[in-house]
C-alpha cells in the first residue's frame, strides 16, 4: 500500500483538471492559428498572383498534374489535413476550384502512405506483416479506385464541383446573400494576419506575399502536428469508448466510428495507422478494419471545412466549395464502392494479394510504395512536361 491520503488525491485530480483545461485551451488556440494561417495563405496568394492565379498554376490546368501535386505533397509531409487546408487557402486566394479538385483527390491517395509505413513495423513476423500490410493497403486500393472512378467523371461533368457549389452558396450566401457583416472570424484573424504581413514586408518588400504564404504553410504544418498530439492524449478515452461500442455491430457502425474517431483526433492517418496493429495481431480481420478505414476518409474532411471558416468575403463560397468537394467526394466514394458488392471486394482482394506477395519478398513492398507514391507520379510529371 502506497497510502495516498485523500487530500493528496484531490490535489492530484485538481492538477489533472487544470492540465486538461490548459490542454483544451491550447487546442482552441491551435484551431485559431490554423484558421489564421489559412487566411494568410489566401491573402498572400491573392497578393502574389494579383488575380492571375490561373497563370501561376497554368501547369496544373491538366487535372492529372493537380492529382500528382496532391499525392506527392501529402506523401512527403504525411498529412492530408495540412495539404487540404493549404488548398482551401489557395482557393481563397484565387486558385480555381476546378484545378483544386484533383489536388484534393491526390491528397486522399498521398495520406495512405503513413499507415503503410506503420505496417512495416511488423516486418519481423511474416504472418503479422502480411495481415498488417493488407490492412494498410486496403486503404490505398480503395482511394486509388475512387480516383479512377470519380476523376474522369469530374473532368467531364464536374458533378462534385457543381453540388458543392450549390451547397456552399446556400450555406455562405452568394453575392446577393453575403453574410460578410455577420462574419466573426475575420475580425479575430485580421490583426494577426496584418502583423505577419508587416513582418513579411520587413524581410522583403517584393517577396512579402510569397513569404506570407510560406508563414501560413509553416504554421499549418506545426498546428497539425501539435493538435494531433494533443488530441490523441485528450481523446484517447473517448475514441476507445466509440470503438468498444462499434465492435460486433456491422460495417455501417464501423464507418461511423471511423469517421467520429478521425474527427476527434483530427487525422485520418492516425486512425488508419491505429488499425494496423489491431489487424497485425490477427484479432481484427481485414473485413472489419476496412469500414473503419473508410470512415477515416470521411472524418478527415472536417479539417478543410474548419479551414474554410477562415475565409470571408467574395471567396468564402469558393473556399467552402472546395472543402465540401472533399466531403462529398469521400462520402460518394464510400457509398459507391462500399455500397456495390462487387466493387467492395476489389480493394480487399487487391490488398490481400499484395500483402501475400510482399510477405514472401519484402522488395515488392518497397517497389510498391516507392512506385505508387513517388516514381509513377514523378514519371507522369516528367512525361507531361516533355509533352507540354
Amino acid at each position: 500500500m502506497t497510502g495516498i491520503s485523500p487530500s493528496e488525491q484531490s490535489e492530484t485530480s485538481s492538477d489533472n483538471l487544470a492540465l486538461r483545461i490548459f490542454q483544451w485551451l491550447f487546442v482552441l488556440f491551435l484551431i485559431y492559428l490554423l484558421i489564421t494561417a489559412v487566411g494568410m495563405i489566401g491573402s498572400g496568394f491573392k497578393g502574389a498572383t494579383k488575380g492571375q492565379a490561373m497563370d501561376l498554376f497554368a501547369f496544373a490546368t491538366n487535372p492529372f498534374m493537380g492529382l500528382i501535386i496532391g499525392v506527392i505533397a501529402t506523401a512527403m509531409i504525411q498529412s492530408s489535413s495540412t495539404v487540404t487546408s493549404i488548398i482551401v487557402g489557395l482557393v481563397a486566394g484565387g486558385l480555381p476550384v476546378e484545378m483544386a479538385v484533383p489536388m484534393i483527390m491526390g491528397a486522399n491517395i498521398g495520406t495512405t502512405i503513413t499507415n503503410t509505413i506503420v505496417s512495416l513495423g511488423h516486418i519481423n513476423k511474416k504472418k503479422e506483416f502480411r495481415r498488417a500490410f493488407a490492412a494498410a493497403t486496403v486503404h490505398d486500393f480503395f482511394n486509388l479506385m475512387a480516383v479512377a472512378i470519380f476523376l474522369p467523371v469530374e473532368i467531364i461533368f464536374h458533378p462534385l464541383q457543381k453540388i458543392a457549389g450549390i451547397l456552399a452558396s446556400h450555406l455562405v450566401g452568394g453575392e446577393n446573400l453575403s453574410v460578410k457583416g455577420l462574419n466573426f472570424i475575420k475580425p479575430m484573424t485580421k490583426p494577426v494576419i496584418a502583423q505577419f504581413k508587416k513582418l513579411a514586408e520587413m524581410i522583403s518588400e517584393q517577396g512579402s506575399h510569397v513569404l506570407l504564404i510560406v508563414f501560413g504553410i509553416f504554421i499549418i504544418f506545426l498546428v497539425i502536428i501539435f493538435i494531433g498530439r494533443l488530441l490523441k492524449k485528450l481523446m484517447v478515452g473517448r475514441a476507445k469508448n466509440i470503438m468498444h461500442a462499434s465492435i460486433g455491430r456491422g460495417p455501417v457502425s464501423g464507418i461511423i466510428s471511423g469517421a467520429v474517431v478521425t474527427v476527434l483526433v483530427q487525422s485520418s492517418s492516425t486512425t488508419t495507422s491505429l488499425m494496423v496493429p489491431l489487424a497485425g495481431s490477427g484479432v481484427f480481420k481485414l473485413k472489419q478494419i476496412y469500414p473503419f478505414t473508410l470512415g477515416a476518409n470521411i472524418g478527415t474532411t472536417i479539417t478543410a471545412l474548419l479551414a474554410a471558416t477562415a475565409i470571408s468575403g467574395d471567396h468564402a463560397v469558393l473556399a467552402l466549395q472546395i472543402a465540401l468537394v472533399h466531403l462529398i467526394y469521400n462520402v460518394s466514394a464510400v457509398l459507391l464502392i462500399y455500397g456495390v458488392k462487387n466493387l467492395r471486394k476489389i480493394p480487399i482482394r487487391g490488398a490481400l494479394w499484395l500483402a501475400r506477395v510482399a510477405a514472401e519478398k519484402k522488395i515488392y513492398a518497397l517497389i510498391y510504395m516507392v512506385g505508387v507514391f513517388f516514381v509513377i507520379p514523378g514519371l507522369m510529371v516528367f512525361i507531361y512536361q516533355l509533352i507540354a
Partner: protein
Amino acid sequence: MENEDFSSLSKKKLKTLIQETQEVLDQLKGELKQRKLDKRHEEIDHMEEHFEDAAHNLSNLKNFIQKVFSEMRKDK
C-alpha cells in the same frame, strides 16, 4: 461418432437428440464469438500503446529497408 448406430433409436428420440445437439452447438458458437469479441475489446484497451507504435514511422522505415537489403543479399 462416425460408426455409431442410431437405427435402434426412435424418431422422437432422434429429434430430441438433434435439438439438444443443436443447442450445444449454438452455445459453443456463442462462446467462440464472445471470446473473439472479448479479445477485440482487450486490444482496444491497449489503444495508447498502439498510438505510440504508430508514431515510430521513420524507425519502421529504416528497419524495413535494412531487412529488404539483407533479404536481397541472402537471395544472391
